[in-house]
């Protein structure tokens, strides 16, 4: 009785002072995670900025060498042309360049390419990123869903011939580097067996096809993306399968699965809500990281299949020491990876109630 009286008399006096409010905001889980993500991005930008400039040679020298090799011009001629073309001052102190770059970045300006007739970095990304997002994103979706499904099949049918076949397949394909598979496909199916017309499949779209919501356009896009997607799926599906298999096998041993059987639940219900959902939980972190890397694409695959995505642009920029383009692409990769992780952290609580943190008031 006494305690009750005290608590009721205290309750109305509890006002949210400014200080309390401040601490509540500062302790907010989401806010803390966002700040951490931004800090990570800042550190990565800074580090890549300096590492890029530590690479041997520089854009001007590369350009001069290219000009000399291409047009057989003398060093002096090439140098003059370079000086005219490059309206940039690479002799400025690196710290000054860094401050300029960060200043521009804060205004949302990613800078201009040193090459490609001074095209804006943002425009380059806008032009090439969708192709990579489409091809790698589709591949990731197929690879994840198919891998999870096959992993569960392997776990349910473990120690059977089907399991042995799928396990061998999974470990085989996940241990071969993707560029090797790409080359093997081109050599066997393209050059030797001549089943695929590799030359025609190059690029991300056939010349003359108008973008639009037409069957022709969609078909053409899929035709060109088919091989990269196939290689991505083939080389990543193995790890999803094996991860899902081991996770499912562990989940099948859980008491609650036995109890669910004892409760007479239907097998389909047990497989989805009791086994599948719990077994897939550890895979979501991995999936989030993979989603982040979708943006980066695969430099080697895009180069081998001449698929015009962001990875190919990155390779080109590296070869030309095109600092702003490199920085721009690294920046979006970083942002994508960091935010995919952040999103995974925040969404994980939705999927697994046991780690729902901070979002609920402590009682």
């Amino acid at each position, binding site marked *: 009785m006494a305690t009750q009286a005290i608590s009721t008399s205290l309750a109305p006096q509890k006002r949210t002072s400014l200080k309390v409010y401040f601490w509540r905001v500062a302790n907010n889980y989401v806010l803390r995670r966002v700040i951490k993500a931004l800090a990570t991005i800042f550190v990565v930008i800074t580090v890549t900025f300096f590492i890029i400039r530590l690479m041997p040679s520089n854009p001007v020298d590369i350009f001069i060498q290219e000009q000399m090799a291409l047009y057989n011009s003398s060093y002096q001629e090439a140098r003059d042309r370079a000086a005219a073309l490059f309206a940039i001052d690479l002799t400025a102190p690196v710290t000054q360049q860094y401050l300029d770059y960060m200043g521009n970045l804060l205004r949302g300006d990613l800078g201009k390419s040193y090459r490609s007739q001074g095209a804006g970095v943002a425009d380059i990304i806008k032009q090439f990123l969708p192709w990579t997002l489409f091809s790698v994103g589709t591949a990731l979706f197929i690879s994840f869903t198919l891998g999870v499904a096959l992993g569960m099949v392997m776990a349910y049918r473990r120690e059977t011939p089907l399991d042995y076949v799928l396990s061998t397949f999974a470990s085989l394909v996940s241990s071969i580097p993707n560029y090797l598979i790409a080359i093997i496909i081109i050599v066997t199916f393209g050059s030797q067996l001549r089943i695929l017309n590799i030359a025609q499949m190059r690029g991300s779209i056939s010349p003359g096809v108008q973008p639009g919501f037409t069957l022709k356009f969609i078909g053409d896009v899929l035709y060109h993306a088919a091989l990269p997607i196939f290689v991505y799926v083939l080389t990543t599906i193995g790890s999803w399968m094996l991860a899902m298999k081991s996770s499912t096998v562990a989940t099948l041993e859980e008491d*609650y699965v036995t109890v669910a*059987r*004892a409760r*007479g639940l239907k097998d389909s*219900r047990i497989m989805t*809500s009791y086994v599948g959902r719990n077994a897939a939980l550890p895979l979501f972190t991995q999936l989030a990281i993979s989603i982040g890397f979708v943006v980066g694409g695969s430099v080697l695959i895009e180069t081998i299949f001449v698929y015009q995505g962001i990875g190919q642009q990155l390779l080109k920029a590296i070869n030309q020491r095109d600092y702003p383009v490199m920085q721009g692409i690294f920046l979006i990769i970083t942002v994508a990876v960091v935010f995919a992780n952040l999103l995974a952290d925040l969404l994980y609580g939705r999927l697994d*109630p046991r780690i729902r943190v901070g979002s609920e008031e402590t009682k």
Partner: protein
Amino acid sequence: MTKTVLEVKNLWVEYPARRGVVQAVRGVSFDLCQGETLAFIGESGSGKTTLGLALVRLLPKSARVRQGNILFYQNGRVQDVLALSQEDLRQFRWRDCAMVFQGAQNSFNPVLRVESQFYDTARAHGMTGTAHVKQRAIDLLRMVQLDPNRVFRSFPHELSGGMRQRVLIALGLLLQPQVIILDEPTTALDILTQRSIIEVLRKLKKELDFSLIFISHDLSLAAELADRVATVYAGTIVEIGGVYDIFERARHPYTQALTHSVPTVTGDLRDLTSIPGSPPDLIVLPPGCAFHPRCPFATQRCKEQEPPLEPVGEGQFAACWNWREAMNKT
């Protein structure tokens, strides 16, 4: 007279292993009456849990039921559990016979709320109408002394071990099964929680009419709850009888040793004795009576012939050649 709800006849369960065949249950026969509580007691690894799992056919895939019958009697109908089809078996589980497992800590799907797990169970057995199920669930949760408003909407991890065990008992009663099997229901719980679980079970038994099979190594809990007690040794029942007979007038040397190895409230501590030796290897069983290497009354006959269960008192049976000697010694 009371009618029989469950009859087990000569049940044999074995697990093939690398070293040989593990004989987990060897020729167990017993029957269970309506409203009765039968406790199976014995050391770890004596085959008690395998016996419980066999009753609802939840044995691991590797297990083999070599022979035997498990008959459920309900409304004049007989079901042979071992002969049920997969779908009939699914329906039979929980509706006719619910099993509450040891370590209820992990008995609930961690990503579903308690309520969904109640609804899941009801739906699997064709009980539709959420309101009806909810009402019954809330009544049951109240019966096991939980606050339904809090517990029903909770996730399993938000509940303590004792609460989860009680929720599982409530869930077990949801479909009004005729038989409930409790496998070590109080293991991993502290002594006060154990006590409250026992109280809850007693109260439920009084209010609802169901039979209980209670599997435990905790003799004092068995003594409190059971009407009849069966002692299990090396996969077989070595003695079965009324709870007072078993604890006061045990005839089998193993039962005697078991009851003397736990302290009593009133007894002298010096009376405590442990059983020499260790439980037998269920792959290579000793010839004759499996208990003879540890038995103080063992004779040549015990090493050669396995004793059958024979009446040693009213409703009391023991499997021992020398039960008379064992009786006179005490």
